[in-house]
């Protein structure tokens, strides 16, 4: 088999796994957009905030230490304990639920019925506010995140592929774990939305507010719920990304990776987010591999957007988005 082809397979697999992470971030957008028509610009910052909170809790950091010390003249930074990863993840999930409640109670409850552009603006404000709060709460230095996920080359795959192709694939254990977790998360979300009472209520709200109210659904409750779920999805994305490249500001930029995924998959479709993520992941890695060297590389920064733009022209509602029919 030609070498190029074998390398291509390896690139393809790595692209698939990168795509799963893109899909995960995109999923957070889709959930909120579907249920409330809000394009949540703050989704990326939520991942950053979740990851910072997780690290902070695990390390026993005192939240708002800077502020407390400045006001009271104290010098506290750490509680002096370490919290096991599992417990810390649960606590962080609770923090994200609290965050969802605050966002709904103090911002979006007052904006019900406003134009989408106004809701969008509010999320921009929210993004920068949350970024500031994250810094103030946990300080802005780069932190290492280790919740015990395996990392580094998977030797089994390396050996196995070496045996077949005479060339060992480099597949990162973290990517494998991330893929499995993302798959479980997506499956759980699908079952939840199809079969649970709350999932039904969520779909009802996504479809028609008036009708949802008339069958006994509380819009407020559903919105807090979707923000909580989106917060949890952000936490999972934050863990994966943070483990890979440290918890730092750039983590919030993963939202930029989700945008082309949404353009491709449609803003309202969960399967769209997944397939879109995979296409973008594989597309950008293969393009970089095949075409990148000829045009000086670094194509990963823009390829996804070009792909999404081309797609938009031909299918503006996205891959699985509901068809836009103009009634006259």
């Amino acid at each position, binding site marked *: 088999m030609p070498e190029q082809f074998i390398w291509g397979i390896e690139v393809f697999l790595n692209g698939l796994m990168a795509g799963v992470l893109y899909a995960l971030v995109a999923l957070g957008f889709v959930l909120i957009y579907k249920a409330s028509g809000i394009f949540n610009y703050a989704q990326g910052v939520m991942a950053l905030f979740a990851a910072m909170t997780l690290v902070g809790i695990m390390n026993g950091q005192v939240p708002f230490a800077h502020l407390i010390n400045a006001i009271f003249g104290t010098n506290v930074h750490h509680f002096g304990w370490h919290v096991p990863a599992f417990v810390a993840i649960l606590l962080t999930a609770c923090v994200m639920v609290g965050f969802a409640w605050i966002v709904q109670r103090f911002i979006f409850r007052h904006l019900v019925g406003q134009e989408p552009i106004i809701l969008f603006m509010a999320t921009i404000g929210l993004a920068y506010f949350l970024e500031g709060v994250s810094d103030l709460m946990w300080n802005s230095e780069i932190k290492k995140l280790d919740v015990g996920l395996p990392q580094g080359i998977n030797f089994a795959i390396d050996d196995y592929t070496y045996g077949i192709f005479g060339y060992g694939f480099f597949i990162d254990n973290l990517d494998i774990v991330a893929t499995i977790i993302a798959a479980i998360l997506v499956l759980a979300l699908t079952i939840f939305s199809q079969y649970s009472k709350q999932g039904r209520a969520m779909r009802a709200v996504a479809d028609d507010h008036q009708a949802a109210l008339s069958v*006994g659904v509380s*819009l407020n409750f559903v919105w807090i719920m979707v923000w909580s779920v989106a917060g949890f999805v952000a936490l999972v994305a934050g863990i994966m990304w943070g483990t890979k490249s440290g918890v730092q500001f750039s983590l919030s930029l993963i939202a930029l990776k989700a945008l082309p995924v949404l353009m491709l998959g449609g803003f309202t479709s969960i399967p769209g987010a997944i397939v879109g993520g995979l296409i973008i992941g594989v597309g950008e890695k293969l393009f970089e591999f095949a075409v990148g060297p000829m045009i000086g590389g670094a194509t990963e920064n823009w390829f996804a957007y070009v792909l999404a733009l081309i797609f938009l022209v031909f299918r503006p509602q996205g891959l699985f988005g509901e068809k836009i029919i103009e009634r006259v």
Partner: protein
Amino acid sequence: MSAVAEEFITEDGRKIGAVVMEMKNITLKFGGVVAIKDISFDIRQGEIRAIIGPNGAGKSSMLNVISGFYHPQEGEVWYKGARRPTMRPYQVAAQGIARTFQNIALFEGMSVLDNVMTGRLTHMKTNMFQQGLWYGKARAEEIENRQKAEEIIDFLEIQAIRKTPVGRLPYGLKKRVELARALAAEPSILLLDEPMAGMNVEEKEDMSRFILDVNDEFGTTIALIEHDMGVVMDLSDRVVVMDYGKKIGDGTPDEVRNNQNVIDAYLGVAHD
């Protein structure tokens, strides 16, 4: 409040029950527009109560007050003998009051069956954590709700379109699906806002029959708004007549028909 009779015999000799819902001096304003002006009336157990009146009289507004979509500036709503505090629509629904809308509000992206299933939401008890833990119980509940939904679907003769996405249905069938969803909640009071508007004669006959059957078989109390006088006179036990936000008549179809104010309003006698 003077004591009201426990029972009431209608013109057709039908016996209807005690008062279940009472609107007391309701006033509702939108800015300068007074949609409802100091209106009082009651609804009795098991009756079919019609609300009629010319366009813009405030009929839908009244239904929206009952279902918690609008909150009146003045007046009280009494339900099952107690004054009802200000309630959100979902809380009203949980109390067993279901409704349909004048401009159909269905879940267009869902199938007919899924739409009807959402009507069961107030009856779903187990939450997501319990669902995860006691799979068996959750499953039994799901099956029970599903059965109820299918019964309603059979009752309204829409089996053929169970799996069809509602967005694709013609207008008349949508109205019927909306009724099915409201019925799935097994409501004690059913509020229908112009259930027959825009239908042809045959569809109207079907819908009238369903409304009578629902009232008859399930004993559901029904309050409905309707423009077609023939239908109103045939179906209802008692009628409230509204005009320009005011109540101008209240009584049996015969009483209302012979009420001079009502005749004037419908003949378009000039208001002063």
